[in-house]
Structure formats: structure tokens, C-alpha cells
């Protein structure tokens, strides 16, 4: 049983957790051995939080080891080192890449207690019955497989889920309103010569190409069939527009990691750039004005979920299901929503948030009191509203999902050329 580890650290952690008072009763009566189970989870930094691991120990009794990596490394690891993890916390577009390797196993929906409450985006693709499904790798298109060992994605909901959705959000451009001094309303502003030498885009090809496409489409230069699945011609045109902008000195730098994006913005090197929501928060917490600007063309959205390693079996697999059910039961959702993400089952998270927090983060209402992050940083003062407003306004205006294209390899090479040009 390679999954069972009896390390000194696990014993120490167990001791610490026993001291801590439990907020929730454990959902099941566990055999003593469950305490000795260690699940190794890896994923991007956004949801790989030590607080979650500590809470798992407290509520469920077993140990969760977290490893945070960047999205490229996550893909690499999920695709090439199946023995190195038990739970993969990955994005849906990564799932499209990784699933065919057979390193993950499908999950039995009937074992997921809150399945019915999961937001429609992850089931039939529709947020509300009237919603139009956005372009790109929409989560529901890679969310299910035909059967237990199947490597092909199912067109509709089945009993076998690839990833259990955990968090998602709608991304847009971040701006420094104090340095720009006028309203920004469209993606085209990224290439506006006014911001020459003060713009940035992220150097992660699969996401960067989407931001580029949003800009090119907004400029009216290119009409895409599907921004999430471009033809070679569309890729060439998009790259040509951005290569020209790069040669003209439009960009100050490209960023690859979260902290780079924060530093570029906070130092004033860049005034408009692709950005992620917590990076905005990080800039703001330094006392610098920064806005996650809603744009009229809509958002580029992403979603993450946890998948189970194909190697999981027996008691470790039971523990993993227990973990998933716990994940959807609200505590983590509340924790993540208080950072500005969305939970897959918002209604369970509501119980773990104050009325003010729920109003600010989910309903888009003005804060009635100071809004703080789970770690205690002040994020907003009373009276402020969230950039972009309510959940349905933000997630209802998704223009495109992060994706992986059929012409991915070609795009990657073109991207490499763009960086090198």
C-alpha cells in the first residue's frame, strides 16, 4: 500500500489537529486507519492552500499534502508523472490535454452528495436556462466521459465525471486608473498606442492567445469562428497583429507568474495588462489603486476542478471521495469566495460567509462593512462594490473559456516565435 504512509510528520500533524477544536462534526465515522492516509494533491497556487489542508485534517482526519505549481508544470506533471499525485487540481483545458493519457480516473456521480446543486455551467453549460454557451473549452464539454475507463468526452451529462468543479472566475484586464485617468471599456485598449511601453500580456500560450483573440475581435480585425479553437489562418493573423505591436514597443514585458504580474502593476512599469483576480487584490493591498476592469466584449473565463489519479483505489479512493464531498460542502467554497473566486456550489458556501460578504462577493451589493480576505487583509471598505458586480453579471458575460485547440501544436510554435520575435 504505497498510499499509506506512516511518517513522523503525519503523526505530529495528527496530534496538532486533535488539539484544535472541530467546527464541524466529521461526516462519517472513520476507522482509525483513515488517520494514516495521506493524499497528495498538486495544482496551481489558487486553490492549493495550506488552510485547506489543515481543515481537512481537522474535519476528515486524514492528511492532505499540497504542492503548488504554475499551469505549465501542472500539465506536465499530470501528463508525465502519474505516480507523483493522488489528486490533481487542474483547469478544464488542462483536463482536455491530460485525460487522453489515462492518468486520471472518472468519478462516480452517484457518490457526490451535492451534485444536484452544482452550478449549471459545469453540467449542461448553461448558467441560466437562457444562457448562451461561450466559445472555448467550456467546462461541461470535458466534464463527463462515456463510461468508467473511457478516454473520450461525452456530449451530455453521464454518471462519470472527469473533474469535480472547485473554483472558477471571469478574467479581464487589470488597469491602474490613477495612471490612466480615463474610463477603459474595451479590450482594444491593450493595443492602444497611448499605452505604448506600458502594456503587458501573459506568457502562457493557451491563455495568452485568448486575450489576444479578445483584443483582435474587439478591434474588428478578425472574426473568429471559435476563439477557443482557431484555424491556422486565424492564429497567423492574430500573431501578426501582436508581433507588430511588440515590434512597435507596445509591451513593457510579458509575465508568467502571479508575482511578476503584481510587481509589474504595482511598480507602475505597466498600466494595463492581462491579470488574475487575486493579483489585483495583491496590488490593492499595497495601497495602490487597481481595477479589474469589466469590458463590453465580455470576460475570458476559466474553471478548475479536482481529478483523481488512476492509481487511487481502496481506502485511499474512499478518502478521496470523502474529500470531494467535503470540498463541495461549503467551507472551502466560502474561503475561496472571500478571495473573489466562485464556488461550484455557491449555496453551500453561503452558510460560511457573513451576509455582508455574500452581498459583496456574490450579489454585487455595496459592502455594508469592511471586507477582509480569509487571511485578514482589508480588501474593500464599506460602500464599495465589486468590480464587475454580481455573480450572474460576471459569469453571464463570458465570451470565451480558456481552452486547448486542435491546432495547439501549431499555435505553440507560433507563440514561441512571437516571444522570440
Amino acid at each position, binding site marked *: 500500500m504505497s498510499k499509506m504512509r506512516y511518517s513522523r510528520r503525519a503523526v505530529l500533524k495528527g496530534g496538532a489537529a486533535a488539539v484544535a477544536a472541530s467546527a464541524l462534526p466529521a461526516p462519517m465515522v472513520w476507522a482509525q486507519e483513515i488517520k494514516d492516509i495521506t493524499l497528495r494533491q498538486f495544482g496551481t497556487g489558487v486553490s492549493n492552500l495550506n488552510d485547506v489542508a489543515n481543515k481537512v485534517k481537522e474535519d476528515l482526519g486524514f492528511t492532505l499534502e499540497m504542492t503548488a505549481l504554475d499551469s*505549465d*508544470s501542472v*500539465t*506536465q506533471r499530470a*501528463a*508525465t508523472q502519474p505516480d507523483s499525485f493522488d489528486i490533481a487540481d487542474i483547469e478544464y483545458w488542462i483536463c482536455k*490535454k*491530460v485525460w*487522453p*493519457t489515462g492518468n486520471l480516473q472518472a468519478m462516480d456521480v452517484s457518490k457526490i452528495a451535492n451534485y444536484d446543486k452544482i452550478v449549471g455551467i459545469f453540467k449542461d453549460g448553461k448558467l441560466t436556462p437562457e444562457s448562451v454557451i461561450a466559445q472555448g473549452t467550456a467546462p461541461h464539454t470535458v466534464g463527463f466521459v462515456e463510461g468508467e475507463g473511457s478516454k473520450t468526452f461525452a456530449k451530455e451529462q453521464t454518471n462519470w465525471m472527469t473533474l469535480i468543479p472547485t473554483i472558477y472566475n471571469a478574467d479581464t484586464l487589470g488597469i491602474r486608473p490613477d495612471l490612466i485617468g480615463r474610463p477603459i471599456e474595451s479590450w482594444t485598449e491593450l493595443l492602444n498606442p497611448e499605452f505604448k*511601453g506600458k502594456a*503587458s500580456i501573459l*506568457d502562457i*500560450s493557451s491563455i495568452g492567445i485568448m486575450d489576444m483573440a479578445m483584443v483582435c475581435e474587439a478591434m474588428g480585425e478578425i472574426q473568429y469562428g471559435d476563439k477557443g479553437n482557431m484555424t491556422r489562418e486565424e492564429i497567423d493573423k492574430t500573431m501578426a497583429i501582436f508581433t507588430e505591436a*511588440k515590434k512597435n514597443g507596445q*509591451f*513593457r*514585458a*510579458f*509575465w*508568467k507568474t502571479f508575482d511578476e504580474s503584481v*510587481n*509589474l502593476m504595482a*511598480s*507602475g*512599469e505597466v498600466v494595463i495588462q492581462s491579470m488574475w483576480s487575486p493579483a489585483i487584490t495583491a496590488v490593492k493591498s499595497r495601497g495602490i489603486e487597481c481595477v479589474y476592469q469589466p469590458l463590453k466584449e465580455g470576460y475570458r473565463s476559466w474553471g478548475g476542478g479536482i481529478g483523481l489519479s488512476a492509481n487511487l483505489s481502496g481506502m485511499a479512493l474512499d478518502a478521496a471521495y470523502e474529500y470531494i464531498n467535503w470540498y463541495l460542502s461549503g467551507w472551502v467554497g466560502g474561503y475561496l469566495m472571500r478571495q473573489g473566486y466562485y464556488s461550484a456550489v455557491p449555496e453551500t458556501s453561503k452558510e460560511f460567509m457573513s451576509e455582508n460578504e455574500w452581498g459583496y462577493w456574490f450579489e454585487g451589493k455595496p459592502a455594508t462593512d469592511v471586507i477582509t480576505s480569509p487571511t485578514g487583509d482589508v480588501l474593500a471598505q464599506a460602500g464599495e462594490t465589486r468590480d464587475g458586480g454580481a455573480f450572474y453579471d460576471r459569469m453571464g458575460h463570458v465570451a470565451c473559456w480558456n481552452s*486547448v485547440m486542435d491546432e*495547439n*501544436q501549431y499555435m*505553440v*510554435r507560433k*507563440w*514561441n*516565435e512571437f*516571444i*522570440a*520575435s
Partner: protein
Amino acid sequence: MLKNRHIQGWLQASPLTLILIGFLILPIITIVVVSFWQATEFSIIPGFSFENYEFLFGSPVTYKVFFATFKYAAITWAMTLAIGFTVAYYLAFHIQNQTTQIALFLLCTIPFWTSNIIRMISWIPFLGRNGIANSMLQSWGITDQPLEWLLYSDFSVILAFVHLYTLFMVVPIFNTMTRIDHSLIEAARDNGASGFQTLTHVILPLTKPGIMIGTIFVLTLVMGDFITVRFMSGSQKANVGRLISNDIALLQYPSAAATAVILLITVLIVIGILLRFVDIRKEL
């Protein structure tokens, strides 16, 4: 007896041979083999195809990137040599007291006790648009606008390279210089050579092996680097190392391997040419 010694010799050489085979030859062979494979985003397909090389040689970007790599290497080499030679010369010939000499030499190495990355990244707040350098220049009235080219440019990349790698030039040159017999310099002076003539006719030729070793260090380090270029150019510039690291990040291992093979061959050719000029074995 003779045969016995023969076997003994082989036995003595075998540990190193085995280590080199296991950790140098085999990995290189693997890289060469993989460079002929194919990859999709999902998997790597063993096979034999020139596709990776065709793409590499068919793309104008490759030539540009190789050119940029040589440019970085050449400029960095010239600057590290100029600085390294001067520092070594000062240490070896101007400081008479050996204790002071060693103390000063150790002083040179102190910055190198911290990590490469830290030394590199500390340039970023210094050179930035609102950084120390720019605010200083503006407060002195030298410039009235922040200089944009200080950071995220070829300038910052080369600055970081020179900063990081000068010591690799200082050490071998200093080492060769301390071995120069001082009576040779006295003889030159007795024969009426000026200070400059002594430098060019006596010291420089005798320091060549040290310069060559330093050159090989600097060239291979700069040509194989990717992280300095990435951080100091804000991902805007590329050298061959970045091409490889981008490919790896995107799971394009065969294509990365092909680029690596070409880079390896290029570096070997450069070193081969350098070794034609100087016999460094004489030094070792």
C-alpha cells in the same frame, strides 16, 4: 607484469568512465534520439522523422534567436574579459602582500555567495521606470524623463550577464597570472620595455591559457542560459535556451531536444575553434 599494469590502468580509469557514460554520454544519446521523435500535446510518439529539424531550420526565428545568443555571448565575453583581466592584473601585480592579495580575492567572491537569481532580480527595482537609477538621474538633472531602456532590454540582459559571470573570468586569469615568473617582468624592464610593452609582449601571451579557460566558462554559461534572459528582458527577448525552455513548458520535448542538439553542436564548434588558438593542456 606488463599486462598486469595494463589491467590496473583500465581499472583505475573505469569509475570515471562509468560515471561519464551513465551521466553524460547516455543522456546526450537520449536527447539525440528523442530529437527525431514526434509529439502531440497528449503524448510523445517514438519514431524517426526530421520534422523537428525541418521546422527548426525552416523558421527565420531560429536564425534570429541564434544570432541573439551569439550577440549576448560576444558582448558579455568582451566585457567580462576587460573587467576580469583588469581585476586579475591588479590583484596579481599591484598587490605585493600575499595576505592582502588573498583577502581581496575573497572579497571578489563574496557577492557570489548569494543565489544567482537573487543577484539578478535585485537589478529589477534598481533599473525600473520608477527605480533608483532613474530617480537618481532625474534628481541630478541628467535626464528629465525616465530612461525606458534601462530595464527589459538587451542592455539589462547584458548587464546582468556581466555581473553574474565576471568572476568566472577573474579566477582563471588570476590563477595564471600568479604563476608568471616575476623575473620575466624584471627582465623585460631591464631590456627597456615600457609598462604597456611588458603587458602586451610578456603578460598577455603568458595569460592566454587563463583567458581561454575563462572564455569557455563565460561562453558556455551565456549560451546555455535562459533564466537571465527571461527575467531581465521581461520575457521580451529570446535566446536559444529560452526556445528550449518554452518548448519544454509546452510539453514539446522532441522539438526541445532538436534545438538542444543544434545548440550543443554550435557550442562544441565554438570551443573547438577556441582550442585551436591556445593549448590549455599546457596550463593544466
